[in-house]
C-alpha cells in the first residue's frame, strides 16, 4: 500500500495532469456523457422505444421464429430457385448497365484525364449527390415509370450503381502510373495507343474487381427490390410474410443466404485471380 502511494506521489510530481486530470476536463467529459445520454434517451422516447413495447414485440417475434422451424417450401422449391436466378439475372444486367454508364463518366471524372477543374468538380459533385439516393427509392420511381417487373429493378440498380462505379473508376485511373503512357507517347504512339497499352492494362483488373464487388452487392439489392414489385426473390419473400407463412419464409431466407455465400465465394475467387 505504501509502495503504491509512493509511486502515485512520484507520478504526480512527473505528470500531474495524467494522474489527476484537471477538474475542467473531468467536468467537461462528465457533461458530455450526461448530455449524450439525455439526448439518446430523448430520441428513444421520440421513437416510442419503450421496454413494454419491445417486450411485446420480442414475444411475438419469438412466436414467429418458432413458426419458422422446420423450414418448409410447400412444394415451391422450383419456383424459389427460379426466382433466385431471376434475382441474379437482374443483378447482372443492372451491373452491366451501370458499368456502361460509369465508364465514360469515370474517365471524365479522373483528374489526370480531364484537367479542367470545373468539369471535374461538376462531375464529382453530381455523382456525390446521386450517390445519396437509396436503390429502393430509385426502384419506386422506376416501377411507376416502367410498370411492375424486373426491367424497372434493373434500371434502378444501374442508377444506384453508376455513381459509385464512376467514382471508383475515376480513382483507379487517377491512381494509375502515368509513366507507361508517357513512354508510349515518347516512342511515337498516339493518345489512343497510349490509353490502350499504357493505361488499360493497369486499370482493367482494378475495374473488373470493383465491378464484381458491385455485382455481389447488387445481388443483395436486387433481392430487396422484389419487395416493392420488381419480381425475384424479394417478391416471393414479401408474399410469404404477408400471409404469415413463416416456415416458407425461413426456407427462402436459407436458400437466399446460401446463394449469397456461394456468389461471394465465387466472386472472391475470381477477384483474387484478377489482382
Amino acid at each position, binding site marked *: 500500500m505504501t509502495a503504491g502511494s509512493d509511486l502515485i506521489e512520484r507520478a504526480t510530481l512527473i505528470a500531474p495532469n495524467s494522474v489527476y486530470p484537471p477538474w475542467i476536463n473531468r467536468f467537461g467529459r462528465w457533461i458530455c456523457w450526461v448530455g449524450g445520454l439525455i439526448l439518446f434517451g430523448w430520441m428513444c422516447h421520440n421513437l416510442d*422505444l419503450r421496454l413494454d413495447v419491445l417486450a411485446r414485440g420480442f414475444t411475438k417475434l419469438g412466436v414467429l421464429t418458432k413458426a419458422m422451424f422446420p423450414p418448409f417450401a410447400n412444394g415451391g422449391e422450383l419456383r424459389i430457385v427460379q426466382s433466385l436466378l431471376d434475382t441474379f439475372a437482374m443483378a447482372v444486367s443492372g451491373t452491366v448497365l451501370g458499368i456502361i454508364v460509369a465508364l465514360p463518366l469515370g474517365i471524365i471524372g479522373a483528374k489526370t484525364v480531364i484537367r479542367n477543374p470545373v468539369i471535374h468538380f461538376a462531375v464529382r459533385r453530381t455523382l456525390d449527390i446521386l450517390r445519396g439516393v437509396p436503390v429502393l427509392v430509385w426502384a*419506386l420511381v422506376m416501377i411507376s415509370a*416502367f410498370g411492375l417487373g*424486373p426491367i424497372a429493378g434493373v434500371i434502378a440498380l444501374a442508377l444506384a450503381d453508376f455513381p459509385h462505379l464512376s467514382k471508383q473508376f475515376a480513382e483507379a485511373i487517377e491512381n494509375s502510373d502515368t509513366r507507361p503512357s508517357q513512354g508510349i507517347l515518347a516512342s511515337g504512339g498516339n493518345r489512343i495507343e497510349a490509353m490502350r497499352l499504357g493505361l488499360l492494362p493497369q486499370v482493367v483488373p482494378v475495374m473488373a474487381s470493383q465491378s464484381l464487388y458491385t455485382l455481389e452487392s447488387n445481388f443483395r439489392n436486387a433481392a430487396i427490390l422484389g419487395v416493392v414489385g420488381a419480381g425475384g426473390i424479394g417478391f416471393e419473400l414479401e408474399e410469404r410474410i404477408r400471409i404469415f407463412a413463416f416456415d416458407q419464409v425461413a426456407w427462402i431466407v436459407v436458400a437466399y443466404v446460401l446463394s*449469397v455465400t456461394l456468389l461471394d465465394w465465387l466472386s472472391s475467387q475470381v477477384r483474387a485471380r484478377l489482382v
Partner: protein
Amino acid sequence: MSKSVDPTTNSDRSSWRLEQIVDHFEAERSRNLRRGRLQQLFQILVVTLLLGGAFQASGLFSSYLGDGALGRIGNFLSRLLPQLHHDRLFEDRATSGSLLYWFYDLDLWLKLLAETVQIAIVATVLGAIFALPLSFLAARNLAPAVWVYWTVRRISELVRTLPDIILALILVAAFGLGPIPGVIALTLGTTASLTKLFAEANEAADMHQLEAVQSAGGNWWQQLRFGLMPQVLPNLASYSLLRLEINVGGAAALGIVGAGGIGVELSRAITFTEFDTYFAVLIMIVGLIFVLDLTSEAIRDRLTGLEKGA
C-alpha cells in the same frame, strides 16, 4: 510462362545452336499464345452466355417497354417535375405554382426527416455498443478461444448477408408498423458490420501496449481499457460515423416497407401518384444525406488525423 522457355537457365541446352534456341522459343511461344487464345475464347463465350441469359431473364431484350417508350419516360419525367410559376414562386402554399405549394406538407416531412435521422442515430449507437464487446471476441489476438472467434465471425457474416429491408419486413410483422422495427433491423445490421470492422481494428492494434499494462499488474479489463482503447478508439469512432451515413440512407428506405421515417411518405406519394411530391421528398432526402456525408467526412478526416498524429 516465359521463364520456362528461357534457354539460358538450362545448362544442358547451352550447347544448342542459336537457330535451335530460336526455333524452340518460337514453338513454345506460339503454343502458349494458342492456349491463351482458346482460354480467352472460352471465357468470352461463358460471359456472353451469362450476360445473354441475364438480359433475357430480366426483360432487357424483349419489347417490354412497348411503343413510344422514350415518350413515356419523358412524360413520366415531366410529371416528376412540379409546375412552378416564376412570378408566384414565394407565395403561400394555397397558391398553385409556388414553392410552398410544391412542398405542401413541409412540416410533416421535416418531422419525418428528423425521425429518420433519429432512427439512424439510435441504431448506430446501439449497434456500436453491442459491437464493442463482440469485437473483442471476434479479434484473433483477443479472443479467449478459437471457437469463440470462429462462432462470432460466422454469425456476424450470416447477419450481414441479410439486407436491412428483409430484416425489417420480418420485424414489421412482429412489431407492427412504426419506427421500432426499423431501429431493430438497422441495429442488427450495424452490430454485425461494426463487429467485423471493430475486430479488424483490434487485430491491427499493437499488442505490446496491452502486455505493458499486464506487466504493470493490470487485469484483462484494464488491459483493454488502457492498452487497447486509446489505440483503436479513433478508428472505431470513424467506422461508426461511416456506418451512421449508411444508416441514414437505410432508414430513409426502410419507411417504404412501413418501418417509420421519411420513406413512409415516399411510399404514400407513389401510391397516390403524386410524383412531384415524390420528387420534393427525394430532394430533401438527398440534401440531408449530402450534408451529413460532408460533415461526417470532415469529422472522420480529423479523427484519423488524430490517430496518425498520436
